[in-house]
């Protein structure tokens, strides 16, 4: 069976690096991006099961990523992470069918569990 594909978008390298390392240990195939533009381009080429995106980024932000993914690839689940506990953003994201919303620092174990749930939801 092919590995599940996970995309991580965060403008800080450390977040992508750590996510990639820990999610690959779970057997996922992980690609990381430092900004959303090339990430969205990549989504045009390849199907990803879950997109983990930072909320606040230069250029296209996390909410825009969520909107685009949900419009174009409704089966792909989106998990949003943010530097601050931002209630408004969380409500907005939930309205747009975000799978999960985490303030940073994010416990990797919880992120893994959330991804597992997202994959279940996706069927």
């Amino acid at each position, binding site marked *: 069976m092919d590995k599940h594909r996970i995309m991580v978008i*965060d403008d*800080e*390298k*450390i*977040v992508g*690096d*750590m*996510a990639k*390392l*820990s999610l*690959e*240990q779970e*057997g996922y195939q992980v690609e990381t991006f430092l900004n959303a533009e090339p990430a969205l381009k990549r989504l045009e080429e390849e199907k990803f099961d879950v997109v983990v995106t*930072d909320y606040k980024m230069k250029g296209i932000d996390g909410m825009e990523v969520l909107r685009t993914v949900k419009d174009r690839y409704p089966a792909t689940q989106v998990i949003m*992470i943010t*530097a*601050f506990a931002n209630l408004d953003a969380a409500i907005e994201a939930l309205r747009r069918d975000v799978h999960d919303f985490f303030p*940073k*620092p*994010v*416990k*990797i*174990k919880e*992120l893994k569990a959330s991804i597992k749930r997202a994959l279940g939801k996706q069927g």
Partner: protein
Amino acid sequence: MKRFAVHMRAFFRTLTGRARHRRSFEQVFDNFREVLERNNRSLEIITSMGDTLGGDYLFDIQYVRRSYEDLHAAMIGSIDSFTRLTQNNYPQLAGVLAGIDARIRHGIEETFPESKDLVFPYERITGERLHDVGGKNANLAELRNVLKITVPEAFAITTGAFDAYMRHNRIFDRIGLPLEGGALPDDQLRELYELVLHGVMPPELSRAIEQGVQQLKPRCVGCSIAVRSSAGEEDGAFSFAGQFDTVLNVPLDAQEIEKAYRKVIASLFSGKSSVYQTRLGLQLKDMKMAVACVAMVDAEASGVLYTRDPGGDRNNMVISASWGLGAVIVEGQAGADLFTVSREEEHGQVGARIGSKSSMLVPAAGYGVVTVATPVEKQMQPSLLPAQIAELARLALTVEKHFRRPQDIEWAVDRSGRIVFLQTRPLSSVDDRPPAPLEHHDPVRPVIARGLGTAVQKGAAAGKVHVLKNERDLDAIPRGAILVARHDSSHFVRVMTEVSAIITDAGSPTSHMAALCREFRIPTVVNAAGATDLLVTGQEITVSVDSTGATLYAGRDQQLVERASQDESTMEELFEFRKKRYLLRSIAPLNLIDPLRDEFTPQACRTMHDILRFIHEKSVSSLIEYAEHGVRSGTVRLDLPIPAGITLIDIGGGLDNPTHVSHVPTEQVTSAPLRAIVSGMTHPGTWRSDAVPMQVQDFMSSMLRVPDLMSDSRGGVETNMAVISGEYAHISLKFGYHFIVLDCFCSTNARNNHIYFRFTGGATDIAKRSRRLQLIAQILEHYGFTMGTKGDLIVARLANRPQAEMLTVLDQLGRLISFTRQLDAVLNDDHAVTHYVQSFLDGSYAYAGSSAQS
């Protein structure tokens, strides 16, 4: 003398208006509690940062900034409260905090100020200079200055000198490159290299080097210098093993050293090192290089020591050794001796493989080094004696203990047999976890070889073999190949991101290449004799490396490879992660451990945690001082079944219904620590009511002793008194000729809790009094106290224990106080000490001539 100083301080305080007695003890105690609360806040943030940066959380720089701001604010709060409590007795502490703060902020923002000093003699290098002098210089200077281990005479040329050189020659302007991101094209890199190599020395740098040379000359007559890079980070973020040029045997002459210096710093931009840097995501323009100018050791033998065997049993160390200079080993060119040595105290040899050592490196006449044939009679002779091996191992463990990580140490033995350390750095990627079980391989897959060679990096890989005949052909190696070569070489770094495993016929697990393989986690074995004959280019194989060496299977076994790679990686291997974690090094470790040692000073604080430790300890001391001197009124007498006569001063919560009474029974004491102590003091059998008969010399001794042993117990205050609150008790007792001070804070927060116990004096002769101190010390040690003794004074401390445990210990202390009151009179020999320690611990309190029941 000390007493005089105390009085003079008090006198000047009166003159300068810093009168301590103006504050009530209640105010001081509130202040003390404020210090504890603020310290706790700081410690909570430190703990939380440690957890979050420990690898279980995704975090970003915003988190680091925010947490650090909180911590800094809390630390300022701690120092403010502490300054008030001690009435600014430690004004240096704020400056110490500022220094650590600057270091952390530079770390967070990755902006380090330029070093103003261009050259540093080793004796002046301190921990704070790490960024200026680079890892190699800093570690070597630490061995010399702190651990007093022999290192060569040396000086450092700083990163500030490097900046000055680059600026003076306008290197980056002339290259005219936006050096952000990615590797430079080869031609531009070459241009950069040439510009640096042929640049002009800034006059101030030439002067500084000349000065360094002149200072070295009298201590290093006739010596020559090894000019080496010192670019690795303070704790080996990346090893840079063998990535930069070293110029050996340079005459001790400023111009010659300048020439070598240019060569070494230019190597920062050589093709070989730039591949490595790009691989780590480093930007060329951010790279700086400090340089070490180290006197050459006239080496009889030299080599490398790993304090843990990275490829085998972690309870062993490995030592590679060869005749002459050590470069042959780190470049993996000679058949070196390989000793496996136990880490246990005797450091016995677990294994030894005597190499052929056919060639050796020696200083050439005048300049540089030359490889010569090893005299035949020495070739198969071990290059180290067993005693030297044991001594090396002992020194190496001292270094490991100091740096708190396994170490990779370069060493030499000079012609006089003296061991000299040439470099130490953290041993990269020593896997502390048990090796992944790899034995479940496909049983039908044919095995080509088993137990081959010495493991360097465990793991598994599959691919097509490429047997390298000549290093010039390195670039021809296809991606994913298994590199098989005769020797190991640090040049392999060029293909390290391409190849999936490395097998060499000869080589050393302590070579530069080995360090790089571990860093890049490339499954690797060396000393796999005959591998180049056994395998042919194009052959598809699977390599599995564990502590027994490599097993080679015919064909590709992807399952085995995946199983081996799972859970192999740790966050520590992520460069960005390590960078952030380094910040904790100036925050979390505790170096200031023993308050009884001389270096327990503000200046000795190297981390935030050290500062908090210092504050806590000195706050307790301050509180004790106030309790002894500052309490005057509001006293009430404690009714006890023993004639101990204790007067109480309740500063809040220490007594139940304390108003307007002159006597209180013990039942009315609500101070938890005092209740425990009193319960111990009055424990049946501990207080001996009859007088123990004194011998004549004891009586004479008591007559000669001045009862006023401690000027602290001033007239006007009851001799036996206790300042108490619900959680606190400060008890000052005088029984005949001996004095006890017991200060304790005992709350539900273990972190705040402390017991301070001081015992001095006695009526008997000095031998008996000393025995009583020995007995007390042994019993206190049993309960986990740390202590110091001086003459007939013992000072003991216990801290950070949970409340229930503190109360148990206080009860025991109460018993000890009663038990030892007259015990010295019967301590006629050392045997008696042992006997009564045991009987006390067994709960038996009777002693010679005693009418007391136990």
